[in-house]
Structures are given as C-alpha cells and as structure tokens.
C-alpha cells in the first residue's frame, strides 16, 4: 500500500536534519553512556572505599594497553575512511578500509586475549580481589562491545553490502551509524585506559 511508507529512512528529516537510524544510534549511545557511566561510578565508589587498592600501572601491562589504544584509534580512522570512500562512490576502497577496521578490531581482541591469559597464568582472577574484579568486568564488557562492532562491520562488509547497489544513500547511512557506534566504543576505551591502567 502506498501510504505504508516509513519516512526519513534514507533522507534526513527537514527539521531534525537526521535520518531515523542516525537519531536512533545517538539515542542508543546515550543509553550506553549511562551504562558505562554507572560502571565507572561504581569503580570510583569501590576504589575510594578501599585503601589497599593498587595503582594500575604497578600490576597491569601498560605497554600492551598502549598498543591496544593505538590499534583502536587507528581502527576509528579506517572506519571514517570506509564511510568517506562511500561518499566518493569508491566501493572498492570501502571494502579495503572496512576490512582493515575489522582486522584492527580483531587485533585488539587478540592483544586483550594475551593480556587476560597472562593474568590467569599469574593466578590473577576476577575473584582475587575487587581490583581484578573491576579490571575484568569493565574491560570484558568493553571487549563484548568491540566484538559486537566487529560482527556488525563483518555483516556490512559481506551480505549487508548488497544494499549498496539497491540504495547507496541508505547503505552509507548504515555505515555512518555503525561508525558512530564504533567511535563510541573507541571512546570508552580512551576513558578505560587511563582510569584503570594509569591511575
């Protein structure tokens, strides 16, 4: 039926200036900020209440985490490049940069895996004390978010990219939304890295 069309899927709303999915992803990020805000607040409260809390850099592997910070920031850059490639109609370069983003995300997870197994090897588990509890819970939840982002990006690189032929504007909109999420996950790490590893 002709009237059963949902508006502003691919063209922005004249007043708000955004498409539905872009507004949706911003609202989703607002919700995620509340999630990580609560996690960080809890971390502060637990740490302030515990005089024996160790300083992160004395027990955690700062060089590895610095490497991971570099990897994630680079992946944010390649994510923007993949979207910019779509804007200039270069689908081949989109695939290159999206592939790079996914590889960098996986690289982050691999480094994280090394870090975790190193901790387990030294008998440092979530139940050892609340420092490790916070460390594993917060970086673990962040890792889950990275994994979710990788899966979404993989979808857009493979089956999801069929949409490019049918509706390029809509596809670019989806990549932009995925990119906003990816940058958010990156940003969470930018907060996690100093507050857990460096303080």
């Amino acid at each position: 039926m002709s009237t059963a069309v949902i508006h502003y899927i691919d063209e922005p709303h004249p007043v708000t200036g955004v498409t539905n999915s872009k507004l949706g992803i911003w609202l989703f990020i607002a919700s995620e900020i509340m999630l990580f805000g609560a996690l960080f607040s809890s971390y502060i409260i637990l740490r302030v209440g515990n005089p024996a809390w160790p300083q992160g850099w004395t027990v955690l592997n700062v060089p590895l985490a610095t490497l991971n910070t570099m990897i994630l920031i680079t992946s944010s850059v390649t994510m923007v490049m993949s979207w910019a490639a779509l804007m200039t109609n270069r689908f081949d370069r989109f695939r290159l940069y999206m592939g790079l983003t996914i590889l960098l995300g996986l690289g982050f997870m691999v480094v994280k895996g090394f870090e975790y197994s190193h901790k387990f090897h030294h008998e440092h588990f979530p139940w050892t004390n609340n420092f490790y509890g916070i460390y594993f819970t917060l970086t673990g939840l962040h890792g889950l978010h990275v994994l979710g982002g990788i899966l979404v990006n993989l979808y857009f690189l493979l089956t999801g990219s069929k949409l490019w032929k049918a509706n390029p504007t809509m596809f670019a909109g989806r990549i932009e939304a995925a990119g906003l999420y990816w940058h958010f996950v990156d940003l969470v790490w930018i907060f996690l890295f100093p507050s857990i590893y460096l303080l």
Partner: protein
Amino acid sequence: MSEHNDHSHELGFIRKYVFSVDHKTIGIQYAITGLLFLFFGFCLMMLMRWQLAYPGEALPLVASWLDNSQMMPGGVMSPDLYNAFGAMHGTIMVFLGVVPLGVGGFGNYIVPLQVGAPDMAFPKLNAASYWSYFVGGVIMLGSFFLPGGPAQSGWTSYPPLSNLASTGQTMWLVGMIFLIASSLLGSVNFLVTIIQLRAKGLSFFRMPFFVWAQFVTAFLLLLAFPPLQAAAVFQLMDRVAGTSFFMPSGLVVSGMPLQVAGGGSPILWQHLFWFLAHPEVYVLILPALGIVTEVIANNTRKPLYGYKTMVYSVLFLGFLSFVVWAHHMFMTGMGTVMSNFFQTTTMIISIPSVILLSCLIITLWGASIRYNLPMMFALAFLPMFAIGGLTGLPLGLATSDIYLHDTYYVIGHFHYVVAPGTLFALFAGIYYWYPKATGRMMNNILGKLHFWISFISINGIFMPMFIQGFAGVSRRLHTPNFYAHSEAIQGTNVFMSISAWVLGAAQLLFIINFFMSLRTGKKASDNPWDATTLEWATPTPPPHGNFLQEPVVHRGPYEYSVPGKATDYVPQQVS
C-alpha cells in the same frame, strides 16, 4: 477496506500473528502477555494472602498440586516459598506486567496511530523488543521449576542476601538482562517515532498528552535502565565469577566466615538499583496518566485544562525523577547531608505531580460528563492516585520515614499508586481502545460489575495497610502475627485477604467480557466515542499501514465543544 489490506494478505499466519513486525500486532502481543503476567503475579499474591490471613494453616484447593515436602510441608506455605512468591510477585507485576502493558501494549498500539505514522520507525527492532521481553519472561517463569525455587530476595534483590541466595537469583538476573535489552530497543523506537514520524502539521504542542507521556517514559527507560544493567552485571559476576562487588569484608554466614575477597559495598547496589527503580515508578505511572488524560478530555467534552502546563510538568517530572532515588535509602546511614538533598528533591517532585492531577480535576469542573466504562475507571484513578501520592510525603521526609520504613504503610502507599491508580487507568485504556483494535464494544453491564466490585475490593486490600503500618507491622513477614504488637490487628489481614480473593473473582468478569465481546460485542464505528485524536481517523480495526491517506493535522488534540461548530468535537485532521 480489504483492498487496502493487500500487504498483510501476502503473509502467512505465523508472519502475521506470531513474528509480526506490525506495531498493532506487537502492541496486542505485549498487552496480552502483560495481562497474563499480571494475572499470574496476582495469583501468587492470592496464595500468599492465605498465609497472611490464616498463618500456619494448610492452603485449601491448591495444597494438593503445589505440595512439595520442601516448599509446602503439609500443605503449609514455607517461609522460603513465601519469600519466593513475594519477590516474584513484585518482579512480575512491575517488569513483566504493568510496564509491558502500559508502554509495550498501549504505547506500541496507540503512539504511531496518534502521531499519524504508518508504523514504528524500526518495525523489526520493535518485534525484537517484544521477543526479548518474551524470553526474559520465560526465564523468570522457568526459575519457578528450579530445585531451590525462584529468586527469594525481594524484587529489589538487595545484596549480600541476594548474592548468597539459591540459583533462582541467577535466573532472575539473566531474565532482567533480557528485559532491559527489550526496554532499550523499545524506548529508542518510541523516541525516534515521536520525533521523526509525526504527521504533517502535528507540531509538538499539538500532540495528544498520551504521546507526551510516552515520550517522557521512553526517555526514562532509555537513561535509567542502563545503571540497573550495570548492577545486574556486577551481581551476576558476584554470583558466577566469585567477585566481591557487593560483598563487604568479614561477612559471617551461619557462624562461618565467608570465603570471598570482600571489600565490596552492598549500598552500591541500592544506589544503582534505585537509580533505575525510582524513574521506573514514573514509567509505571506516566502511560497511565496519559490514558486517563485522553479518556477524561474525551468524556468531559471540553478542552483539557492547562494542556501546556501539563506538558511542562511531565517534562519536569521526568527530569526530577533522576534525582530522588536515595529517598528509598534513608535508613542506610548515608548521612544527613544526603538525606536533606534527597528529601528536598522529593518534596519538589510532588509539585508537578500535583499540577498534573489538579489540571485533570479542574477539567471535570462544569463539564457534562459521560459516565461510560473508560470514564469510570479514569475517574477512579484520580482519588486513588492522589491517595497514593499524598501518603508518599511522610515517606519522603527522612524523620517520619524512620518510623514508617519497611512497614505495611509503604506497601499501602505504592500499591495505591500502582494498583488502584495505574491498573485502573490501564483498564480504562482497554475499555477505551478495545473498539478500535477489535471493531467491537465491550459489554457494558459486565464492565460496570467489574468496575464496582474491583473498586470496592481493591480499597479493602490496601486501605487497612496504612493502619497496619502505623501499628508497626513489618512488611515481608511470613508469619504476620509473629510479634506480639501485630497480634491485635491480625483481623485486618483476614478482611484484606477476602478482599483480594473477591478482587481476583472480579477479574474473571473482565476476562469473560474481553473474549465474549470479540464475538458478540456491539459493532463499533470508526470513531465510537466521538474523539478528536488521529487514531480514530483510521478504519476499524486499522489495516497494515494504518491510514488510508497520509493524515495532515490542522488543530490541537482536544477541540471539544468549540463554539459555532456543527458537532461538539473537531477531529485533528479536519481542516
């Protein structure tokens, strides 16, 4: 209208009625599931009320099939089972009953219609939201079949008790994570729909108040639930991975020191929990308030008094609801500075609530009121909600809360808000929109019987709770007359229990009416209540895509009895 139905004709039964992406089907799915959970949660309470009225006596009727030597020795409800039923009654009523009915059901069905949209902005996410809720509900129900029973630590799940409870608590947490995911998907969808998909001409200040109420509710769900998500993850880690986020040092259980690292904070859970759970109170109330507003404007046949004031009030209320949470925690010893802050914000939040209620009451002034079924429930909402709100003031002040905290007074207070308040409003909504959704009116005589019996019996349950609370009877007691001071008013428990069972019986009238009217109800026109808002501008029941032409809005939502017009109402789409 069948030629406009072509989209849905292509779909098979499963796609059309089970895994549908149409907001109306999803709304009905939400509403029916929510109603079933409400009835189930109420059944738990009807069983508990036997133990409260006749402590230590075997349950009649159900003892034989609930008999389980551990939970029901000799057919008597054990304290563990009482605790489990209490915890699950609260959880089910709040998270699986009222919110899914008010937000998921009414919101899904009505909001796209009232804003003149063909569907929600993200139909597939909408379906995902329902199914995530469904899975959460199944997990919660499944926990009843665990050997140790379901969660037993109250709907608030305070640690360290909840950290040490049986496996049911883990199921509770996993279920909550699904419910939170569901509400996140739903709230994003509502906000985008309301912001982006309003019909041409439907400016924000022409939106029906129900849409405003859902708008603020969606913001509360979006921003208040994540901290509970964080808390649930922490508690799950405590229970599954052995962390000590909520476990203090030096905890001794049954004479044995607990083998955990310690150093955690049980109060942290309370802060995270109430950061959600106070806004959650408004998530329960606001959709109900929205329904009542629609029904009252329609049946007074005059414009709403102070529409803009109500809108600003509800926005202010939504904002303030984020900074009152610790008034649930005056007894934790958090200090007078904190208490002062939170009792001040709590007193301030009563102002917009009173404004909202006053506007509705003033709307009644001088009106020739139509006393139909939805209007009776909506009118009953006003004093019931007022009693619930006003009895909250002594709880919001730290000094008087010290005496009343954790007594039956608290139970009476919030049940007045949620049961005869919110639930009556939700019933008003069902009677009001049933003709739009089904094409038939509900039976008037059965409906009036349902109303009067429910109205009298529900007050019979909750009014004596204030007396019990003043007498110092603690909540969550398995044996209500365990302490000598509560023996004197044990008689009220018998009266309350009988009221509860009568209320349960009255709901059978509603159930009969609901199904009978599907077949035998009087056929409804497209606009049986002579209403102005856009949902009545659709065919009945609305086809897939809702409107025959894209609606254009020319006026505000409540143009009733406009002088010089031929009818006493002017619909929004009339130019």
